[in-house]
């Protein structure tokens, strides 16, 4: 990984930034830290992703369940030669804690940051806890951009030494309500300083196309790199669950039908009528179809003007990333950082 060199217009020097700046179609992945102190699990997952993505998001107490910290796990990921995107939510830390953790993250070699509001703690395993929400994700983006570009802390004090220079990301939920406001909320994130955007999972390409049209109309695709979120389905049940229970995710019926169809040989049987082999075979059929759908989605999303890459979310199924990236024709990944180092 290179260090910052603002003279060539590079903001952070991260691999992800360079891949995007060079005009390559980027691919990022996701790695969920364990609910334990086991660093081996991170190494194992990193090995599955290395070489197949340009950078990997490390979630921050995802769904409000306590896990190894994003920066802790990110440090191991850096050691493994993979580039992390540190996720930082506003739920658990105030502006003091966020800034100090980011100074540490930068010193440990992390260069990409995704700024999130964070799921409410009521969903997680400590629903009785107090939340923070001292800032929101947009204010967080602005704070980190000011650290880098103005050399100041949130309070306005100037840095007396090296400032952290992150490639700053934010999330977008194109299909959440109020849906008409979503492109404007994206505009606010860009105005605050978001260099890249990773979207919520996209299964409905026409709906996303319509969103991107509005985004392009506002010129946002020229001010930020938009990575469309994709994720392989594991079963028709998962597809239905996301359609019905997860806000801001649209799953077209035809995709559910495709997932259901490949399970047809085992359909209509009760749970106890299926042998373990049956279940395994059915699960394999579903997963193969899920990967196939994901590949097709990537190919379709790639055609939409203004989509600069994909963010592949295959959490707890990191093995799926390799066939997806290969299947979508995104392998090998550009090795820009190494090239530059060698030069």
């Amino acid at each position, binding site marked *: 990984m290179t260090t910052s060199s603002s003279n060539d217009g590079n903001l952070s020097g991260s691999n992800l930034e360079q891949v995007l700046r060079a005009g390559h179609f980027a691919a990022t992945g996701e790695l969920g830290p364990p609910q334990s102190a086991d660093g081996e699990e991170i190494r194992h997952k990193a090995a599955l992703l290395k070489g197949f993505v340009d950078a990997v998001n490390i979630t921050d107490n995802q769904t409000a369940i306590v896990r190894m910290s994003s920066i802790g796990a990110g440090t191991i990921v850096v050691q493994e030669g993979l580039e992390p995107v540190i996720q930082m939510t506003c739920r658990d830390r105030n502006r003091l804690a966020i800034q100090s953790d980011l100074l540490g993250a930068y010193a440990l070699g992390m260069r990409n940051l995704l700024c999130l509001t964070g799921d409410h703690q009521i969903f997680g395993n400590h629903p009785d806890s107090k939340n923070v929400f001292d800032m*929101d994700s947009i204010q967080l983006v*602005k704070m980190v951009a000011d650290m880098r570009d103005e050399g100041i802390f*949130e309070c306005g004090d100037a840095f007396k030494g090296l400032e952290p220079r992150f490639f700053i990301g934010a999330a977008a939920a194109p299909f959440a*309500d109020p849906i008409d*406001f979503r492109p404007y*909320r994206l505009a606010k994130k860009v105005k605050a300083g978001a260099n890249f955007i990773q979207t919520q999972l996209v299964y409905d390409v026409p709906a996303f196309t319509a969103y991107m049209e509005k985004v392009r109309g506002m010129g946002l695709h020229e001010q930020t790199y938009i990575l469309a979120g994709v994720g392989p389905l594991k079963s028709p049940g998962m597809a239905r669950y996301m359609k019905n229970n997860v806000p801001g995710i649209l799953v077209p019926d035809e995709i559910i039908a495709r997932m259901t169809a490949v399970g047809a040989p085992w359909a209509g049987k009760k749970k106890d009528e299926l042998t373990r082999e049956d279940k395994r075979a059915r699960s394999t059929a579903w997963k193969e179809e899920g990967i196939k759908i994901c590949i097709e989605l990537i190919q379709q999303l790639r055609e939409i003007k203004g989509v600069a890459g994909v963010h592949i979310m295959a959490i707890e199924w990191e093995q799926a990333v390799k066939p997806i990236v290969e299947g979508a024709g995104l392998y090998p990944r550009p090795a820009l950082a190494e090239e530059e180092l060698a030069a």
Partner: protein
Amino acid sequence: MIVAEQKSLEELRSLIGDAENVLVVGCGTCVTVCFAGGSREAAIVSSSLRMASKLNGDKMQVRDVTVQRQCEWEYLDEIEEQISEADVVLSLGCGIGVQAIAEHFPNTWVVPGLNTNFLGMPTEQGVWDERCAACGDCILGLTGGICPIARCSKSLLNGPCGGSEDGHCEIDPEVDCAWQLIYDRLNRMGKLQVLLDLQPPKNWRTSRDGGPRRIVREDLRLLEEEE
């Protein structure tokens, strides 16, 4: 108004313990309006306590009295004698009323009969909703008169998070998404451009985060001294 709810009879009994003389003190202001601690509730609570103690074979004396406002010392002066006779005062005022009694009567043991919930209003018969978190720096002028501090589960200042769905908040389908309400209202009023400005991080110093708050009005203070 301050909205509160009564604690369970079981908890009230354990708070009272084996006191022999109990005085239940209601309050005639907010908690009367939200049917938690007015004169009616004070009478019901004291008769329930009497009944329970009778069943138990205790000889507990329970009386009740209601003042117009428990959170002002001058109203508490009116019941000084009754208070001095009680082993324990069960306040059916909000948390402020309980503390006013404790502060005004240093030798009186006072326990809370209510849980003080929030600053809000009745929105339909039998339903109260939170409206204000007393942040000390009101921003309703930016949000169409709908408070995101108190009513957005994450107190967001720059618009809806990704969890807003069909008008409700991600935490519960029964909870309105404050930002959907704000969006709808500003949209209706043709003022959506207000939402495009970046709102900087809030100064929470005026809120509870800055420590206990106090207001001193020198103009009023001087007047009092002149009197």
